[in-house]
Each structure stands twice: as C-alpha cells, then as structure tokens.
C-alpha cells in the first residue's frame, strides 16, 4: 500500500504540470495582468506541492489545483483590500441585479432565432473582449463552466460559494455577454429602449 502511495506521489509533479496552461489562462482572467498571473500560478504550484500529501488520489487533480489557484487569488485580493483596491463581487452582483436581465419578447418559432445566429457570428476576439469586460464574479463563473468545463460542484468549491449561486452567476454572466454581443438586436427585441 505504501508502494502504491509512493507511486501516486511519483506522478504528482509531472501530472500537476500538465495543467499549467489552463491555470495560467484562468489566472490571467483573474488578474488581468500577465506578470500577476504568472506569480499566481507559481504560487499555486508551490502550495499544491506542499500540500500534495493531502491530495486524494483518484480525485480530480485539475479541479484541486484550480481550487488552490482561486483560494490564493482570494487571499491576495483580501490583502489588497486592506489597501483599498478590493473588487467587491457581491456589489457587482447587486449592480447586475439592478441592471436586470430584461425579459425579451418572443421569437416563438424554432431554435434558430435571428439573435442566436447573430451571436454565433461573433468573432473570437470580440467574445474574448466581452468576457474580459464582465465583472469578476460572473467572468469567473462563466469561464470555469463554459471554457474550463468544470461541474457546478467543482466551481462551488473553487469559488467558495453555494451551488445555487454558481448557477445564478453563470446565468447572469451569460445574459450579460448576450446583451454585450447582440446589443442592437436585444434592445430592439426587449422593447424597453
């Protein structure tokens, strides 16, 4: 059994490094700054390695590393908050609530609506810019779900928020992206301009 554990540990370092690209991309979304993102990722590996004996073999190493990444980012944000630079994700959420996701009017026929086609015509750089422009709380949730494809439960652990909040942030984040990428269309459809 000890042999098995040691073999498990033997692969840890190499296995962990496989995820450096996706960790860096996600760190870049969190920090919006390559140098900070690199520091965050390096810190993540350092902490992960120190805690490697607490990693349960057979569970998702990538999700575990992402959890450490987000915890580290949160701690850093908390440190910065003492200097008055905190991005308050709850405030962002309330603001989004006030802004509201307008209920759009019907386009009852078919799934291939003009608006979804319009969105599908969006180019990657525009999409990237729109994602980057989302408030932190929603960008994180949408990114982890739609780009990195984690489960709600995994995201819940990473962001330290309930699963219901994970889903509502994904939902609002997607709707904000929609409004961002198809503004004319949605405004016209909403009938609220």
């Amino acid at each position, binding site marked *: 059994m000890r042999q098995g554990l040691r073999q498990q540990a033997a692969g840890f370092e190499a296995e962990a490094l496989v995820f450096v690209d996706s960790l860096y991309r996600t760190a870049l979304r969190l920090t919006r700054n390559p140098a900070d993102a690199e520091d965050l990722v390096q810190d993540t590996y350092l902490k*992960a390695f120190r805690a490697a004996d607490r990693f349960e073999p057979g569970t998702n190493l990538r999700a575990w590393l992402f959890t450490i990444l987000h915890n580290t980012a949160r701690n850093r944000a908390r440190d910065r908050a003492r200097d008055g630079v905190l991005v308050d994700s709850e405030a962002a959420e309330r603001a989004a609530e006030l802004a509201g996701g307008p209920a759009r009017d019907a386009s009852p026929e078919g799934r291939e609506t003009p608006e979804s086609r319009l969105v599908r015509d969006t180019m990657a750089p525009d999409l990237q810019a729109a994602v980057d422009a989302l408030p932190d709380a929603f960008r994180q949730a949408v990114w982890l779900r739609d780009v990195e494809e984690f489960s709600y439960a995994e995201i819940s652990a990473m962001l330290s928020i309930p699963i219901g909040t994970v889903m509502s942030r994904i939902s609002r984040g997607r709707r904000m992206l929609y409004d961002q990428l198809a503004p004319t269309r949605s405004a016209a459809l909403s009938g609220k301009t």
Partner: protein
Amino acid sequence: MIDCQTLDPLVTPYVDGELDAASRDAVEAHLGRCAPCHSRVAAEQSVRDLIHAHQDALTSSGASPALRARCAAAMKRAPQARSWRARATPFALAATITLVVGGTFLYQVTDRSARVMAAELTADHIKCFGMNRVLGTHDSAAAVESSIGSTFGLRIGLPDQPQQAGLELVGERPCLYGEGRVAHIMYRHNGHPVSLFMLPKTTRPDSVVEVMGHEAAIWSSGDRTFVLIAREPRRDVEQMAGFVHAALR
C-alpha cells in the same frame, strides 16, 4: 406546474443539460407556452454555444516556457511531503551499506529551521565518522536494536533482510556529541559514510537540504523525524532515504 419564477433557477442547469428527465420535461412544457422565458433560454443557450464554438481560440494562449520552468522549480524547491520519496521508489542499491549506531546527544528539536538542524547534524556526522574507526565492524540487527533500546529507550525495527538492498549492518557505538535524545545511526554507501538521525517526538515537513557539501533528507514518520546525511549526489541521498523510510519498522 412551473411558472416563470420557479423556472428561473432551472434555466442554467437546463441549458447545461444537467436536469433529470422529469425536470427537463417540465421546463420544456413551460417554454412551450411562455415566449419571454423561451427567449431567455435561447439567449443563454446561444452564448454557451458561442463560447464552446470558440473554445480553441479562447484556450489557445498558454503558459510561457519560462513560467513552466518556474513552476517546476517551485515544486523542486518546496519543502514538501513525498517529493523525494516519490523519486526514491525504484531503489537499487548496489553498494554495501554499513550500519553503525552511534551514541547520544541532546538536541533542541523544536523551532529550528531545517537548514540549521541539518547543519548541526552534518557537523556531528563529520565529527563522528572522523573520530571513530567503526566502519569495518559488523553487528547483527538484533544487537543494534537492543542497543538503541537500552541507550535511548527507543524501539526501532531495522530492515529484516537489508542485504536485499545491498545493506550491511555493521555495529554501533556512542557519539561524543550530545547528551541522549537523538539516535545517530551510521551507514556506508559507495565507500562514503552516511548518517541517519532519529529525533523522537518531533515532526517536520519533508525536505532535502544542502549543507556543507552534504545533502540532508528530512522526513517524519509517526512522531519521529529522521534525517539522512551523506556527501553524495542528491539523487542518491533521496534513494537511500526512500529505502530507509520504507524499510524501517
């Protein structure tokens, strides 16, 4: 029956295909008769599809080679559990290792850095081997275990068949250094002296430290900390530490 309000928390799991069949049917029944909700779901669905369609572009950038190297180095540097044990698994010790149990000394085992502890123990390692002509002797495991028991009041189980790993148990004699709480066990590997220190009632994070031209591998097992020191390549020291860790009972 689902209304617009109860639909709300179901939209995202519906779009993500995370609902069970019954909930999915209920959502679709509502969407069939509620145009605003239908539109909202279509919008969310289309953004999800859009992101998925561009997933390659969104994930095309990655870590630079420099960052990758930094992360690899961070893991190598980190004082960490199992790092060297991991690399120590395929142990094939060809050389003879002689084992000597040295004497006693009091050691302040708490609140010292690993480097300071390793430095003091390395000094002891050098001094002890320099002063004692013990490497040609040979004792049985039972004799050494018994001696450790009577000298330190510690029970230790040495490997039953050390020769399987090229180990030879030589003997034990007291060290001049210290006053009695740390067991100093001496080996020989490739003609070089190797020391194993056993510190009772203390635990430390695993690490390998370089001090005074020696490598010191530190690990804990139960409530004891072990430090293995040799003037040999780190890889060899890690291998020896890995073997000893696995073989001690």
